[in-house]
Structures are given as structure tokens and as C-alpha cells.
């Protein structure tokens, strides 16, 4: 059984059909790239998987459970995590508190009120910050970070709950080349415990880190397969050439 299976997903906004029977299958410990031209429905498909949108038709299964109508909270508790396209770190909180906020999400109310997990989570917070090269900024407000660093902080927050599946919507948007390279390196180690679905415009980045790709065009799946298969696919080359 795949970890995630979305099938027959359609999403209609008024007169606009954003998705028309699209699908996505992701296995355990797989990095899966979701690519396609602008307006092909990548972000909408991601949102339907994440629970930010409810698909008009179709079914999303995650770890053998039908989660199509789960709320974001329920999905998070089932082991799914999401990094938004627009960075949504909490700007006025320190980096430390941003991570702590993500880590303590599963603590009981009693533990939260009496701050009983604060001490035990401290090491994890510092480890996550170190892993994403942010440890020396721990006590600064997140708003003071550069754009690339905010993206890393956000990825760190999304990973804090040890999800089985992480959805990344344009993680390298607005990053320098060097920051992109580092992002790729930062993501590699998580493969041991987590699968990844990644929407990204930077095709080099996608090719470097992904195992499999799904190509969307006009709300439908154009092709899906390994990176090599997709690269040699005629119709994929066509849509990218057509728009290039």
C-alpha cells in the first residue's frame, strides 16, 4: 500500500475547473515532485491533500485511512505536515518559540498550562534549530530572518511533529542559488523517516532531490514516473517547450 493515494481529484471554483480528475501516489520514504506549468493545478492538488481545500470529487487515502474530509488538525494528528507557499512563521515570536509551538502541539492541555513539557522539549528545539543552521538566532524574532532562513525555519516547524509525510509548497521560492543547494542538503536526511511531496518551479532542484515526479497540465495528470522516465517523456517536453 502506498503511503498517500489521491485519486480522481476534481476541484471546481465557480466556473473555473482547477483540477479535473488528478491523482497522486506517494510511497514510503519517497521524495515526490509535483510539477507543471503555471495554473496547472499543482497548488490546488497540494491543498486538497493537505486539507486546506476540500475536493469537489475524489478520494484521498493516507496510511490506509480515507482522510478526504479530515480537517487540517485531524490530518496533522494522523502524521501529515505542510509548509505553506507563503511563509507563515509567526513573525513576532522568537525562532525558539516558533519551533516549540510546533513541537508542543501534541501536549495535553494540562501539560501546556503547567508548562510540563517545556524542559523536555528544550533539547529537541535546539537540535532542530541546529539542523537548520539557525541555532545562533534562537532568541531573535522570526521577522528578523532573511527570506531563505524563514523558509528553513518553516520547514523545521513542519518537521517538528515527526510527520510521515511532509508537503512542501515551493520551498525554494525567492532563494539564492546557494540557499537552494543548502535546502536540498537539509532535506536529504529526513528521507529516513518521512516522505515528501514537493511543488517547485526550479526543475534542477526537483531533479536533484526527487525519486519520482508527477506532471500536471490543465488540471490533469500528464505523466507520472521516475525522474528519468519523465525526462524522456515526449508530451512533457512539449508542454515545457511550448511555454518556454
Amino acid at each position, binding site marked *: 500500500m502506498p503511503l498517500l493515494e489521491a485519486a480522481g481529484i476534481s476541484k471546481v471554483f465557480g466556473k473555473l475547473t482547477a483540477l479535473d480528475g488528478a491523482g497522486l501516489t506517494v510511497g514510503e520514504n519517497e521524495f515526490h515532485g509535483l510539477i507543471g506549468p503555471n495554473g496547472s493545478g499543482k497548488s490546488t492538488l497540494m491543498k486538497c491533500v493537505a486539507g486546506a481545500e476540500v475536493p469537489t470529487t475524489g478520494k484521498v487515502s493516507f496510511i490506509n485511512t480515507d482522510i478526504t474530509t479530515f480537517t487540517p488538525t485531524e490530518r496533522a494528528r494522523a502524521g501529515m505536515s505542510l509548509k505553506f507557499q507563503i511563509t507563515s512563521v509567526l513573525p*513576532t515570536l522568537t525562532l525558539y*518559540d516558533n519551533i516549540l509551538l510546533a513541537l508542543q502541539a*501534541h501536549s495535553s492541555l494540562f501539560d501546556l*498550562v503547567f*508548562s510540563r513539557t517545556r524542559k523536555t522539549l528544550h533539547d529537541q528545539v535546539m537540535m532542530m534549530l541546529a539542523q537548520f543552521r539557525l541555532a545562533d538566532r534562537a*532568541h531573535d524574532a522570526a521577522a528578523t530572518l532573511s527570506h531563505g532562513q524563514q523558509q528553513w525555519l518553516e520547514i523545521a*516547524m513542519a518537521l517538528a511533529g515527526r510527520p510521515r509525510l511532509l508537503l512542501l509548497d515551493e520551498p525554494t521560492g525567492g532563494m539564492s542559488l546557494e540557499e537552494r543547494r543548502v535546502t536540498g*542538503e*537539509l532535506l536529504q536526511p529526513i528521507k529516513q523517516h518521512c516522505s515528501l511531496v514537493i511543488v517547485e518551479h526550479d526543475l534542477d532542484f526537483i531533479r536533484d532531490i526527487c525519486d519520482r515526479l508527477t506532471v500536471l497540465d490543465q488540471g490533469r495528470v500528464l505523466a507520472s514516473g521516475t525522474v528519468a522516465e519523465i525526462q524522456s517523456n515526449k508530451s512533457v517536453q512539449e508542454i515545457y517547450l511550448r511555454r518556454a
Partner: protein
Amino acid sequence: MGAAEQAVARLSEGPVVVTGEGVSAESAPAGQASAGRRVLPIVEALVLLIALVLPLVLQDYLTVFATRVIILALFAISFDLVWGYAGIMSFGQALFFGAAGYGVALLARDLNVTSIFLILPAGTLIGLTASLLLGGFLLLGRYPSSVIFVSLGTLTGSYAADRLARGWYYLGGQNGIPSIPSMSLGSYDFEEGTTFYYLALGILVVVYLLCRFLVRSQFGLALAGLRENEQRIAFFGYKAQHLKAIIFAIGGTIAGLAGSLYAFHEGFVWPNMLGVVFSTQVVLYVLFGGSGTLIGAVIGTVIIEGVSFWLSDNYRDVWPIILGVLLLLVIMFRPLGLISFVLGERERVGSFGIRPREKRDAAP
């Protein structure tokens, strides 16, 4: 060595990344520096000190006025928790304040209950029950309620209660319930004046400290997340609607406590106490003083009430206009309230990690 650490080790050998503003080097001691100059405890101590000596220097009628202000400050804190800390726009906080006031007034009128040990718990319970009911209806759903729904829902609740009280003969209609007897402790009666002042102050300090504990806890961090980006924290797995309903009920409980004190201090209750007038007044206290800080709510109440008192004495006809202009000026130029003159953004938001004492314990 774990995989993550290996990755870190490997990465740290690589070339240095360009990190935007290049502030990393100087930023390390920033946290410590800001920890060294905290102004909030100083402001809090100062306000407490003034409050403690006030009845010694004030004339009797002013002590009565100051007691009223302290009770209203308690009410302001209840709203600040809900709005300033959790970001829930409640335009109907007076509903809980007034419902408790009416409830305890009825207990005194119809059942001759005046013991402080029954009155205050009863008022608190009424506030809790009312806010659980309204909060449950407005906030608990499978999906988060919209801001408009919550603000109009609370406003409507408060307005409806006001109308209900005005039209209901049993509650005294427009006139409310007059001449409530004094609150008692054994054979002692709490009359307006110095004793009542210190009673109210004592309760305010206790509630303040409890709220301070709460908003600085990990629960306070969850509230900060709720306030800043509710959708984001839902994606972490927080039950955002539950958090909201809980803090709403805590706010309602404190408003109930304040309302029951207010009823016995004034000696009567009237429909305005439930309605839009008090509900908006408390918004202004908190906006003026500084939302999201407990002391800001207290300071805002003191200043608005103090200024209105003075203005209404000296400028009998135009004082509401002067007060309105003052409020507008503060909201335009100091959207974070008067407290922001002395309190920086970083300290206002605060930090929620382990405290230095715990850090020492944690270190081997």
C-alpha cells in the same frame, strides 16, 4: 551520531551560506541583552505600589471611585485574555459581567444570600456557564468560525441580554435591581470604602497573577499562535477551536467575578451592565492601555475612567467629545496602546522557552 547530527556536521564543513542581512554574528547575545532590561515587572510593581497606598491619600468619595475602577480593571483583564492574547474579537464581554451581576443581585434580593463565600463563587459560576454556552455555540465547530460570525454573535448576545433585562419585570425592567444589601463576611458587612477597596485589589492581584502565570506558560505560547495565525497552528495539530473555547470561558469566568463584585459595590444592577455600552467600554480600556499585556488593560481602565471622571467634572458638556478625540489619537498613533511608550514589541510578545533556572537544572 544520529543522521540529523551527521547532516549538521557535514553541512557545517561546507562553504558559508549567505544569510541575507548578515546579522547572524551579532545576534547571539541579543536574547540575553533584552532579558537584562525588562520593563514589564517594573511597571507592574509601580502600579501595585500606587494602588496599595492610594486609599491612604484619597478622600473617601475618591476611594469609592477607585474601587469601581479596580473592579472594571478586572473586567478589562477578562477581555484582554480573550482578545489581546487569543485574538478572539468578542464584542459582548459585558454579557458575562452583567449576567453575573444580575444573578448575584437576585440571590441577595430573593434568597437573602449575601455571604462573600457564596456570592463570589456564584458570580464566577454564572460567568463560566454563560461563556461556555455562548462560546460553545460560536466557537466550537468542525471548522473555525469566521471573525465576523464571532464578533457579531457576541455583540448580538450582549444586545439581546440588555433588551431582555429591560423588558423583564422580574429583573426590574429599565430600572434594574436597586438597593442590593451589602456583601457580608460573617457579621461583617463590606460597605463602600477602604475595606472594599482592598478586597477588590486583593482579588485583582490574585487574578492578575493567575493570568500572568497562564499567559507565560506553554498554553500562552499556544494562544500566541492562535492570535497570530490560527490556520497555521491547526496544521500543527492544535485543536484551535477548543483552545478558543477554553480561553473564552476563562475570560467569561473572570468577567463574572468582576460583575458580582461590581453589583455589590454599586448596590444596584441595571441593563447597561449587560449590554453594548459596557461591552464597548471594555474594548476601549484594553485598546487604550495596550492589548496583549495584562498591565496595559489595567492602566487603560485607570486612565480612561480617571480622565472621564475629571473631564465630566470640569467640562460638563463637551467631555465625551474630548475623551473620544483622545482615544482616537491613541489608536491612530499608538495602536499598541499607551504601554508601548515604555514596552518594546519583543518584550510584549515575550518568550516561552525554559527559564534560566530550569536551564541550570537541565544542564549537566
